[in-house]
């Protein structure tokens, strides 16, 4: 429980875990509120997918600690919808983190990641290994985001579709 009480925003933290696996620089910038709205088609498409793939009737939004809404499907699992499975590890860790958090609250759930475009889904359980990994990740986030300067930009494939592309490379 202690690891979690320091953090007030579950969803925010979830995104940070996601970014930890995608790009540590992105994580640093995001943690300092240096964010840019991306009008890139990909992001838009992601939003549209989210809105239309799963009509709201099947889901129930659950408010945790008066802070965060997580969509919970009627069968009692939480889910995330992702545009593609390219960032698989990052997505898995994000959902596993939510499971971990809920577990601390005494709520046991399954996690589901849907990849509607690929007509695929991934079902996740909070195993002891995942639990360890989440703890480790939270610690690493703390280390990175308390550094005074951001990790330098390193060109990788995903830069091209990253909202920070022009910021990092312009």
């Amino acid at each position, binding site marked *: 429980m202690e690891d979690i009480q320091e953090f007030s925003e579950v969803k925010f933290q979830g995104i940070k875990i996601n970014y930890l696996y995608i790009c540590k620089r992105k994580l640093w910038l995001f943690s*300092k*509120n*240096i964010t*840019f709205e991306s*009008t890139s088609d990909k992001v838009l498409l992601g939003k549209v997918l989210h809105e239309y793939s799963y009509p709201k009737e099947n889901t129930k939004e659950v408010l945790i600690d008066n802070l965060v809404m997580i969509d919970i499907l009627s069968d009692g699992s939480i889910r995330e919808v992702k545009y593609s499975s390219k960032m698989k590890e990052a997505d898995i860790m994000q959902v596993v983190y939510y499971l971990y958090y809920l577990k601390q609250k005494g709520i046991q759930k399954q996690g589901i990641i849907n990849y509607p475009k690929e007509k695929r889904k991934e079902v996740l359980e909070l195993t002891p290994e995942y639990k360890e990994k989440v703890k480790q990740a939270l610690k690493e986030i703390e280390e990175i985001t308390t550094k005074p300067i*951001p990790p330098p930009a390193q060109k990788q494939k995903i830069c091209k579709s990253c909202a920070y592309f022009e*910021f990092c490379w*312009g």
Partner: protein
Amino acid sequence: MQKSLYLTSNGRLRRHENTLYFETEVEKRSIDIENVEQIHIFGEVDLNTKALNYISQYGIVLHFYNYYGFYAGSFLPRKKNVSGDVVVRQALHYLDREKRLFLAYCFVESAVYHMMRNLRERKEAEAFLIAIEDEWGKGRFNISNIAELMGLEGRIRNIYYQSFNQFLPEDFAMEKREKRPPTNPINALISFGNSLIYSHTLSQIYQTQLDPTISFLHEPSEKRFSLSLDISEIFKPLIVDTVIFKLLNNRQISLEHFDEDLNYCYLNQEGKKIFIKEFQSKLETTVRHRQLNRNVSYKGFIRLECYKLIKHFIGDQVYSPLKAWW
């Protein structure tokens, strides 16, 4: 690209249900609000809080200009992109004498570079170009404070404006640059263009985490959004002056596009429209960016300057101002 909207006629901005309209005596047109980034208001326009609240939901900036076409003020909706971290560090760069001077120097260096760039291709202006190079070459290494830097910049700008007489039509001769009030056509054009670049720069700053009130070359007390003045220095010669040269040398703007009253010389409505059209098309013109390997518009380059400043403040990358390479 998110659009800039210019309202040059008189009318009313009105929200009706989920649409924003601009109504004039002759027409009522709806505004595609989702694709608008900023609205520039030149005419006499009425609007109420209902419209204003709607506009701010979309993060749209409103810029107001007075009767003469000079910048009057802006309405900036509550900001989404706020980073206390960036602002604190931006302020630190202002407070540290050396750090401040470095940035101030960068802005002037880029401005001078672009002035020289404008003269380089013009045989008639060769003597002036040499004079600027000389002044800059001598002066740039002897600067120990902002006032000296400002002085040097002022001397260079004088030579630069003098050179205009060599290649602009005779009707547009300039004795000297006068800001307030401009009493002849060329000064009126420069002032109008500078107003536009100032507000556009402010719009770009607004989209980032930078605080527009903390500046380096200009004193933060000089104008409310003095960082916009700083960054504008880079883009005045690059965008405004080239627009003026084009409009005058192609005779798209002539003396009939100006009105005069007791104190002012200013563009009339038709003149403003012509200027804005050319200015906007310049902003949208794109150039291949070498690092990004993408086309970037002139407007995009203003945004990139903001990004570079943020990177400088957070200790990521030392600021190096734009020097147009194309």
